[in-house]
């Protein structure tokens, strides 16, 4: 007979969702076991996803700023610039972030286990360690936060050499001359714009007629314009027939239209799949959906009420910020704690170049919901701060009700968009009238002024 350690809460996975779930449990005075299959806490967000890609993005932007400074300083870029040179800060950033998280978990008295978790029953989990040994834990509440990994489509032979996914592209040794990016979602758009800015000839291919279709159309149009200025191309409405390395120097992507694209490398960014394969879900009675996700209710409860699922395993929006909140709220619900008001307006940040961010209703959604909308626009190049910073693109778009009185949504494309959006978020949360943005004074010169300019644009259109 194997002895199990009894705890109050088991959390499987230490990414943003699992970490916040575990901390919430510990803060409520519960004994928490956090199980992580990799050596470090933090999940894919820290080691393969958000942080590495943002570090690469930041380096690309720094490089461009340097290039812009060539008018003042005499220097030239190295011809053999390597991705590894651009990622020099990554190790430091990851280590610091990992240590911070580990310290936070330790400070909260959470028991961290390194191993692969698999359900023995709906209350018991087996932790398999690297050396083959196992530990068993039981708890009245279990939270699954196992995250996701890049999807490998059946018809695309990803070899991590010529045909890469969003994990292996981060360990490229040198910048390819050309890159075909398969997909039109967040990851595809982020990498496509970063590599295009670095001088790689990038072609995005997707079934949708425009990338990031869930965003306000004006934002994606602005993004596409900027992407094309850096030499990128978006090929919408295309299905992929085959992808094959020619054995010499190129990967050939054949589209169903018969057209052929050749590039040195291909990045496959056609979605992610949940990490469920080691969980032995059949021991719990939970059935994944046909898309391999876990179905949950508004409290993130699965069909087994004391087992919760949070983060990427439950599907969109798959934002680190939302996942954290899901983890916290799931544990509050499980423990009968007040989780506070449910967040009404969650901003979405997309780290393309230029950045995009959105909160509230899009123009199209506002028209559908309110029978019309007034839209105010402010272009960054018209704002003093934008001119000072040499911004040639950037747009802040405010969406108001048909009378132009109440703020319904804010959509921004341009550098700083993911920070700037929070003013709009606060406005939405407090049901702020449009005039409040006109009556108030913003720092000068700042991009925040764009709110005032856009609000004035709405006021101008009012029917009096």
């Amino acid at each position, binding site marked *: 007979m194997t002895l199990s350690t009894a705890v109050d809460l088991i959390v499987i996975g230490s990414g943003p969702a699992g970490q916040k779930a575990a901390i919430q449990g510990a803060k409520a005075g519960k004994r928490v076991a956090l199980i992580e299959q990799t050596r470090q806490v933090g999940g894919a967000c820290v080691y393969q996803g958000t942080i590495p890609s943002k570090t690469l993005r930041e380096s690309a932007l720094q490089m461009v700023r340097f290039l812009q400074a060539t008018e003042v300083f005499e220097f030239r870029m190295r011809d053999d610039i390597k991705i590894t040179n651009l990622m020099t800060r990554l190790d430091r950033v990851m280590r610091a972030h990992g240590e911070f998280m580990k310290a936070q978990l330790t400070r909260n008295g959470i028991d961290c286990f390194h191993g692969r978790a698999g359900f023995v029953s709906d209350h018991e989990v087996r932790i398999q360690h690297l050396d083959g040994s196992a530990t068993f834990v039981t708890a009245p509440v279990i939270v699954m936060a196992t995250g996701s990994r890049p999807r490998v489509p059946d018809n695309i032979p990803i070899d*991590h*050499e010529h045909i890469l996914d969003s994990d292996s592209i981060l*360990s490229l040794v040198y910048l390819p001359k050309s890159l075909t990016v398969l997909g039109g979602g967040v990851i595809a758009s982020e990498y496509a714009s970063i590599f295009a800015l670095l001088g790689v000839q990038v072609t995005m291919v997707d079934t949708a007629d425009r990338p990031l279709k869930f965003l306000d159309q004006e934002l994606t149009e602005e993004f596409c314009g900027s992407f094309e200025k850096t030499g990128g191309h978006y090929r919408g409405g295309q299905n992929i027939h085959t992808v094959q390395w020619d*054995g010499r120097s190129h990967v050939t992507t054949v589209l169903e239209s018969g057209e052929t694209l050749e590039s040195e490398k291909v990045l496959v960014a056609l979605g992610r799949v949940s990490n469920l394969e080691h969980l032995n879900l059949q021991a719990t009675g939970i059935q994944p959906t046909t898309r391999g996700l876990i179905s949950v209710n508004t409290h993130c409860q699965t069909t087994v009420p004391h087992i919760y699922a949070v983060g990427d395993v439950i599907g969109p929006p798959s934002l680190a910020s939302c996942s954290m909140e899901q983890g916290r709220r799931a544990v509050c619900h499980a423990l009968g704690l007040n989780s506070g008001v449910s967040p009404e307006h969650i901003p979405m940040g997309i780290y393309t170049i230029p950045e995009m961010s959105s909160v509230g209703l899009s123009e199209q959604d506002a028209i559908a919901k309110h029978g019309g909308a007034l839209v105010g626009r402010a272009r960054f190049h018209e704002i003093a701060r934008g001119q000072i910073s040499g911004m040639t693109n950037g747009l802040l778009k405010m969406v108001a009700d048909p009378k132009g009185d109440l703020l319904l949504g804010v959509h921004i494309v341009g550098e700083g968009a993911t920070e700037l959006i929070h003013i709009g978020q606060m406005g939405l949360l407090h049901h702020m009238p449009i005039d409040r943005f006109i009556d108030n004074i913003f720092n000068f010169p700042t991009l925040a002024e764009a709110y005032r300019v856009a609000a004035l644009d709405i006021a101008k259109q009012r029917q009096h």
Partner: protein
Amino acid sequence: MAHSSIVSLEQEERETLRAFITDQLGRGNLELPLLPVVANQVLLLSSDPDSEVAQFSSLIQQDQALAGQIIRIANSPAYAPRAPIVSLQQAITWLGLNMLAGLAFSVSVQSGVFHTTGYEQEVRGLWRHALATGLFGKEIARRIRHNVENAFLCGLLHTIGKPAILHLLSQAPGRSTERFSWRTVESLFDDFHVTAGSKLGAAWQLPDPVQETIRYYQDDQYHQASSPTKGAMITCLAHHLASVMLGNSSHDEKSLLTLPVVQDLNFYPEDMTALLELSETIKPSVECFLS
């Protein structure tokens, strides 16, 4: 009595040779073997993003033996061509530019600088292990969803210091025709192959990740490597897997699990089983390269 005198003679010989190699490696003007012209050009060409198949083809054609070897490997069952490969261009297409560059480099180096009379069998064993390490390295990189581009060359050349030591021994004063016991040679490898390999790597201007792997591929060293390619760590495990596959390791499948590098790469028992199962495809590939 007779046994102890043999032991002491061997020890004496070892000490003499150790002193000789220490002296050689300590010299500023160490005479290392020159990289064969073809190997050097292959290396340059393979790191040039503008290189084309035709350039590789004409380069390899300069060395008839090398061209023959490449065609033979491309036609071997390990690479199972759909139709017989009759031209270098076709072989390059079939094997792939990167694999071909590694092979051409390896064949050229083997048959050239490190052809050490008297140790043919042992040198062959060294190359067998190096090739297996390169091939395992690619699979390890693939398994951690890491770019595999450098893994083969890192594995192939990680113990380049060993044949370099043999090369030095052939220059030992008054010993040129004498064959030292392999036990003595192996003991010298243990002491000097990393230093010799590092000097050779620098002299031949091997790519940075390869030089770092040569320096740090060992169990107690790979932590010092900083290249994001993880070449040293990957090669460390690949080295062990190659040793197990070729039957010259003190480890078995179970004890491999306790290696720090297995833990650091976060490989669970099922991952290791899957890697070891690859021996069935790696072994014939290695033999085909060597035959």
